[in-house]
Structure formats: C-alpha cells, structure tokens
C-alpha cells in the first residue's frame, strides 16, 4: 500500500516532458565496461556491448567504438537482457474480461491496446522490455492475447512484437466457475471444474464441425469451378469469428496459455489438449505444479508463476515459496511473472526469492525473467539473452539485479534508451523548479497589482 502511495505521489509530480521516450542514438551505441550477464554465455566482467541499429552487433571485451558511435560508460554497473513479463494485463483499454459470454475466443486484446497506459513507462523503470498482455480469467476460453515490446511513446501498432505467435488465454477453476461472484445476476454455466472442461470440449467439437463445413464448401466450390459454371456457385457457410478463433487453436496456430492452480485440473486439461492436438504452451500461476513436475516436463508445458504469492483463495492454498524452484530443478520451464502493474517494476526482486527460498542458482533465477519467458512466448530468436544478432533489449542495474538494494538505471528497447533514471530525475527536478518559479512569479505579479491599486 505504501509503495503504491509513493508511486502515486511521484506520478503527480512528473511532467509529461519527463516521460519523453527514446533518446535518439547516433550511428551505433557502445555500452562499455559493465558486468554483462549474457545468460547464454556466462558473465563478462568489464564487458562491452556494441549496438548497431536495433541489434546487438558484438558482445565482448575492449570493443573499440567507431568514429560516430555513442558511448555509455557502465563502470561498476550490471547489464542483463531486458526482463520479459510473460503474464500481465497492462496496456489494455476497458475491461480485461469479456464477462458477457462463456467462451469468447474471438475477443482480441490487440483491438484494445492502450499505448498511453503509464504502466508501460513504469514497467520500463523496472527493466522490463517485453510483456505478454492478455485477458483475465473469467472465461474458459477468454480470447487472444498479444506480446508487446515496450516502445513507449508510439501508437498501439508500434507496441506489437513482430514475429511473436498469437496466444489464446484459457482459465480453469474458481474464476470461470464464477464462484467468487457474489453480486446479483443469473448464474452462468458451468459451476464445476468438470463443467469448465466440458465447455471447452464442446467448443472444440463445434469448431471441428465448422471446419468441416468450410472444407466441404471449398470442395464444392472447386468442383463447381471445374464444371465451368453449370450450376451457381455454392453459398459459403456463415463466417463465425468465435469458431474461427477456436479453429485456430485446433490448428495450433494460437498458443494456449491456461490459467490453473490445481494439479488435477492441469493433468486433466493436458489430456484434453493432447486428444485434440492443441498447442498448450504454458500454465498460468500453476501453483501446484511442483506436485506434477515430471508430468509437466513430459508433456512439454511451461509454468508462468509467482515467487511467493498464495493462499488468497482456497484453490491457491496448496503451494510453497519453493514451488518455482522445485519445478525448475526438475526441468520445468519456469517464468516468474507479475500479473500486476505494480509488481512488474520489481520482478528482479521476485526472481531473487527463488534463490533465497528455493536454492536456485543466480543464473537459473535470472533465466525465469529472460530466456524462459522468451521461449514460452516464442520470441527466443529475438530476445532473452545478450547475444550477437539479437534485439538490443537491455536493462542496466546499479548492482547485481538479484541484490536487494539494486536499482534499475537504464532500459533499452531495440537499441534505444527508453528509460534513463538520471535524466528522468533531472527532468523532474527541472519541472518542479520551473513550476515553483511560475507560481512565485504569478504571486509577485499579483502582489504588485494589489500594490498598484493602493
């Protein structure tokens, strides 16, 4: 609560000018002499990163800058790949749940991106460079989510992470059952966990029927064209965007992200996905995942989870602060996520808890914020490690990112500085001074006027 107040107060003081995005870079940018946590190739003490355009051109030591290269000295600082938050709900305009129907697979977060959401900027202040933003958990199949790069200051289009697969957000358990909805209203089917799964299965069957109708139509169309217009062309089936979206799930085009807490329902939905050939990529929260770690590994499904958040409802009782670490040690692909605009700014603290409580190594802990979520989101080709050829998405810290006293000092996306703490604080002080001066001038002018009247 206190931290929220501070942020709120800070927000009131910020002049929009201080939030101005992206310091333009000249021909190339060299980050010099920092401790580079590459994730994929060890840590380079006193290492350099050369950025050309939006890409990392070289990583190593004693890289000489070209004549036009900007240089930022990172002596004593730590650089890691930009943090990736694989489960969040920011930058969405309007409700994050479409509550009006049970299955709303056609409802797409891409349609309602709000590039002006100030939480994008706040995320950058915590070293976050990419996020997966999606529906809430009100529906068994909520709809499409999207992967964003936090290119703050542009339009919704500028935010979209090109090349990332589209996702479909599902939810099991108490939320789609609406068991916590105490307000008035007609009860919505389903009211049991069995019902939630049955609803998904029914939708699959409807979508398969829909796909058959289209296949049938396309066949008829082909025949009819081959017969050179003896008969009128067949009437196509009616387009149904909901079933189209479910069909895309069945075609493995959309990657499924399934909100679930309990081990039994995770096992059950894994069986369903296997049966229909659905690409189930990741369980969201998955608090009891440590109980079925081997099954998760065998299926090849990841878990995007919290470091130490549980017991907020009965289905979230059965977990431990060690859960993420236990799963990771057993070979599950684990990401630590925020699910929350405020927590998003301090994900590095949360990852550190897996070291403190679960005994993960520092590298393993950092992976839960970088390459692991990158793999889960299908963007590991572009980001998640500091390597030549990848996007220059980087976060600079005052100390090791897992140090409790660390502060994110600079965040780069596509080689551009989108957040620079020193400049930001400087701008704020300037704005405050300017404001004070204006007020004083106004007061003086007023006093003078009163004096003149006398």
């Amino acid at each position, binding site marked *: 609560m206190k931290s929220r107040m501070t942020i709120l107060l800070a*927000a*009131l003081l*910020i*002049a*929009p000018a201080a*939030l101005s995005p992206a310091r333009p870079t000249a021909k190339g940018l060299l980050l010099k002499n920092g401790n580079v946590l590459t994730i994929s190739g060890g840590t380079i003490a006193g290492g350099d990163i050369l950025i050309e355009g939006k890409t990392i051109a070289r990583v190593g030591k004693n890289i000489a800058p070209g004549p036009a290269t900007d240089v930022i000295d990172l002596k004593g600082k730590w650089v890691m790949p930009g943090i990736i938050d694989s489960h969040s709900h920011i930058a*969405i*305009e*309007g*409700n*994050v*749940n*479409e*509550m*009006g*129907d049970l299955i*709303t697979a*056609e*409802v*797409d*977060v891409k*349609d*309602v*991106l*709000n*590039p*002006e*959401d*100030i939480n994008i900027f706040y995320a950058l202040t915590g070293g976050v460079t990419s996020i997966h933003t999606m529906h809430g958990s009100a529906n068994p199949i909520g*709809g499409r989510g999207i992967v964003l790069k936090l290119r703050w200051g542009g*339009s*919704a289009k500028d935010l979209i992470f090109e090349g990332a697969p589209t996702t479909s957000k599902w939810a099991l358990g108490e939320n789609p059952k609406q068991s916590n909805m105490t307000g*008035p*209203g*007609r009860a919505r089917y389903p009211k049991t966990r069995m019902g939630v799964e049955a609803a998904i299965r029914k939708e699959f069957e409807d979508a398969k029927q829909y796909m058959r109708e289209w296949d049938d139509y396309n066949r008829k169309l082909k025949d009819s064209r081959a017969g050179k217009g003896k008969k*009128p062309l067949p*009437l196509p089936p*009616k*387009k*149904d*965007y*909901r079933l189209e979206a479910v069909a895309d799930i069945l075609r493995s085009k959309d990657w499924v992200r399934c909100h679930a807490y309990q081990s039994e329902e995770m096992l059950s939905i894994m069986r369903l996905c296997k049966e229909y050939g659905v690409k189930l990529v990741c369980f969201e929260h998955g608090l009891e995942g440590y109980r079925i770690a081997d099954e998760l590994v065998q299926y090849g499904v990841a878990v995007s989870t919290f470091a130490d958040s549980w017991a907020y409802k009965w289905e979230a009782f059965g977990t431990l602060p060690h859960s993420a670490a236990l799963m990771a040690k057993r070979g599950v692909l684990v990401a630590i996520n925020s699910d929350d605009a405020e927590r998003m700014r301090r994900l590095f603290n949360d990852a550190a808890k897996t070291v403190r409580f679960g005994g993960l190594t520092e590298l393993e802990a950092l992976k839960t914020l970088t390459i692991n979520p990158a793999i889960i989101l299908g963007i590991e080709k572009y980001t998640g490690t500091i390597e030549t050829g990848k996007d220059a998405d980087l976060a600079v810290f005052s100390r090791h990112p897992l140090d409790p006293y660390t502060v994110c000092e600079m965040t780069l996306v596509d080689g551009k500085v989108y957040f620079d703490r020193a400049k930001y604080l400087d701008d704020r002080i300037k704005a405050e001074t300017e404001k004070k001066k204006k007020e004083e001038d106004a007061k003086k002018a007023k006093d003078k006027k009163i004096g003149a009247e006398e």
Partner: protein
Amino acid sequence: MPRKILKQTVPGVCLFLLISLQAQLSPQESLHRVWAVKDCRILSLSGPAVEKGSIIIRNGLIEAVGPNIPIPPDAEVIDGAKLTAWPGFTDALGQSLLKWPEEKFDAAKIYSGDFTDKDKGITPELKAFDLVNLGKAAIEKYHTHGITAAEVLPDKGVLTGQASFFSLGAPDKNKALLLKENAFGIGFSPAGFLVYPNSLMGVVAYLRQAFSDASYHALAKSRWQKEMRGSERPDYNGQQEILAGYAASKKSFIFLCRNQHDIRRALSLADDWKIDFFIADLGSEASLVIPELKKSKAKVLCTVAFKAPGTSLYSQLGKEQREKAEKDIYPKNPARLAEAGIPFAFSSLGTDDPKSFIEGIQKAVEAGLPREKALDALTGAPALFFGLDKALGTIEPGKIANLVLATGDPLTKDAKTRYVFADGQKFELKEAKAKEGEKPAVNVSGKWELSVEGGLKLTVEFMQEEGALSGKMTTPFGAFDFTGGTVSGKEVYFEMNITVGGQQLDLYFSATVEGDTMRGSVVQGTQGSAEFTGKRIP
C-alpha cells in the same frame, strides 16, 4: 372564451384541455412568406463581403442578394442597418434535440439476466426522426447562437441508431426534415451489464461479427431472390437488413470515437468493410492521428468540449496535468486539423447545449483556428459533408433561407443575434428585451412552487444571472428545461416547450415578484391563459 373554460376545469387537467384546444386551431404558421432585409452588411461566404446590401427571402428560399436589389412590394421589410448577415450555422452532429423516452430500468433483469438488445446498446432501429423534438423552446436555444440546421443522431451504445438532418425552421419535423436516415451511428461504449459485449474488446469483436453477418444476410437473401427453386431462404433479420442497407446504399456510418485509439479502431473497421464514414472526434484527439486520417481520406466531426479522455497521459498524471492540457492542448485540436488540411465540421456532442457549443468553437479560434476556417466548419463544410451544398452553407439566390442577422461579427464575443431565418421563417430573438428593460430588482434563483388556477402544482428551479433566466420545471408530465427567460425590474418572463402525451406545447409565463412570492399568468400560444401564484420553497 378559452380563459372561461380554463376557469371551469377541475384540478390537474387544465393542461390536457389546452392540448385539445390546440389541436382544433391551425399551427403557428407565419403570415408572411416574403421578407426583405435592407441595408445590412452581408457575409455571404460565397464571395467578398457586401458592405451594404439587401437580401430578399421568398417562400423559404433566398430570392436575391446583393447591393442595389429592388425591394419587392409584397415584402415585409426589416431594417438591416447596423446588422450583419451570415449563413446560418449547422451543428454537424448533435443529440440534444432528441427527446429520449423516459423509461424505467427494470432491476429484475439484473437478477434474471434477461437483457434486451437495448440494454446491450444494440439499437439500430432507433431513428432520430422519431425522437426529435423541435419545439419552440428547443429550437430557440439554437437560434440564439445562430444555428439553423443540425444532423441529429441517437448516440448511445454500440449500434446507436439512425441520423436525420433538419433545418430548424419549423416545429413540425415533417417540414424541418432535409435528409431522413442519412447516416448510421457506431459507438465503442459497452453496456454496463453482464451481457455480451460488456468490454471494449468485446464491442470490437461484436462489430466485426455484426458486419460480417449483415453482408452474409444480404448475400443469402439475394441468392434466394435470384434462385428461389432449390435454394434455402434466410430468416428475416431486421438489424442485419438495416446495416446491410446502409452499406449497400453508400450512406455514411458515423463512428463515435472517445479517444485517438477509437479513431484508429474505426479507420481499421471502415477499411475492412469498405464503407463511407465520418469520424466523430469526441475526445478531441483527431490531431494525433493525422497521417492515418489523411491516408483514409476521413472526414472529421470535431467536438469542442475539450475534455481529456481518461486514456490520455494527462488524465493519468492527475487533476493538475489534466486541467492544464484541457486548457492549453486540447483546444488546439481543430487548428491542427485545419493546418493539416483534414476536412472537418463542428459537432455539438459533448457540449450539447448550443451556448457551450459556440463558446467551445470560440475557444478553438483563440487557440489558433483561423476564424474563416471555423466559419467554414459551421457552414460550407457540413453542407458538403451531407451532400447539401446546393441548398445550404452560403447566402446565395436559390439556397434555403437559413441566415443570421446580428450585431458584431460571427463567432466574436460581442456578436448578438437579433433575427434568425430558418427555412425562410423569421425568428426574432428576445435577448434584446432584457437589455432594453430595467435592471433586475429581484433575484429569483432557487426553488419555487407555482399554483396554477385549477389546482395544478408545478415546481420550478430558477437560475438567474443578472437579467437572464433559465431553469427547470417539474410538472406532472415530466421535467422540462428552459432558457432565454428574462428578469427586468420585478417582472419575470420565461417560455418553455413541454411534451404532454406526445404533443408539443408552448407555454409563456409572466409574473411580478414580491419578496418570496410571485403572481402572474401563463399563456398557451393564443389559446388561453391561466393565473398562477408562486412561493419560494425555503
């Protein structure tokens, strides 16, 4: 005689009696159809200003205009010396002339979940023509600020309804109508109930499906009509036929965009559907989308409330930043559109009452919009947008006689409308009366109870600003607003237009105030009057 009848009525029914009397008499038709405005300055907006000229109006149209025009012998002459004439303004998109039916929401629906399409904001069948109220008080508000025509649209929900275009010359909507159902409204505001679509993202998905369904319905129907033998007949679907009808007849869709992101959404949907459209810029953020607007050749209906949308950074940074932006940044929106060459007209949505509408446009002018551009956006541009440029927009022979006679220059603070011609009907504005009269010696602001003879009780809440009086009256038939009243000395005068049982009724109140009481009479047209007394409700 009517007065006698009134006195005999039993309590509470006198107003109903007034209606039946009105029905027997001819409507307030003007006696004169020919006017000559002599020796006025003319800003025709079709050429250079004429410093001294005349305008001849005959049978609703402008017959002649210019210097040295002979005055026809059958014309009633208005001395235009000291007055300037300019074309009547058009509100290119408004809803304040609509009288929404008063409906009680049935709370049982929240429990049963039996929501109607209306609860969902799906009301394609709603027609501005059916809902419009062009009563005297309603149109006088527009005339006072020089507005003589308006595109009116039911603007609530998702598929909001069908617009019509009116010239504000007659209370009879059949006479006032210029274009019936000429545009269709699409909004991005979900309903607040647990019913699909209840989120913005649901609304976008819904719209996509609705348009697909409409075009499919049209296809299936035409297939069946062509080949009845052996082909399946699609079910009738009124909503889909309306949508498909608008799209097929190349009528415009009006996207009600609350912020810059809605504008981008609208452009993308319009591109998918290949429809003609307008962007109603409710959030005054169109100037942030200029390249996209240019690319899709969009026409913008600019509002002038200049409230920062909740999505904007200014709103998120707190009250101080928001208010600063609303003062310094948002009023620049029309000027930036003008600079970029985006075609736009002004819409009263968001400001709603004509006074704040014109004040908002003045703000835009102060923020850098050239005055002639502002005038065009109120005259020529909307006429062109709605395909009425041959009938409206300038003072030229053959065009509809919609014009303003005022002191001062258009859109300046000291402009005072003296006469308005709408559809060739002359309206003289009362504002001068307060000026000529005494200074007010009383302040009636506050709540009053009026007892009309016959036992009818009315409560009025007056708002008095110097000699100007406005307020709201609660009657057994509903609550009604009025403006344009006057207070001079101890005399109070105000007029209002009410609807009783679907009938329009104009009432004229005058009274003398003595402390916390007043005594006077109410006249209904020429059909009768009744005495009333009033006392202040403490």
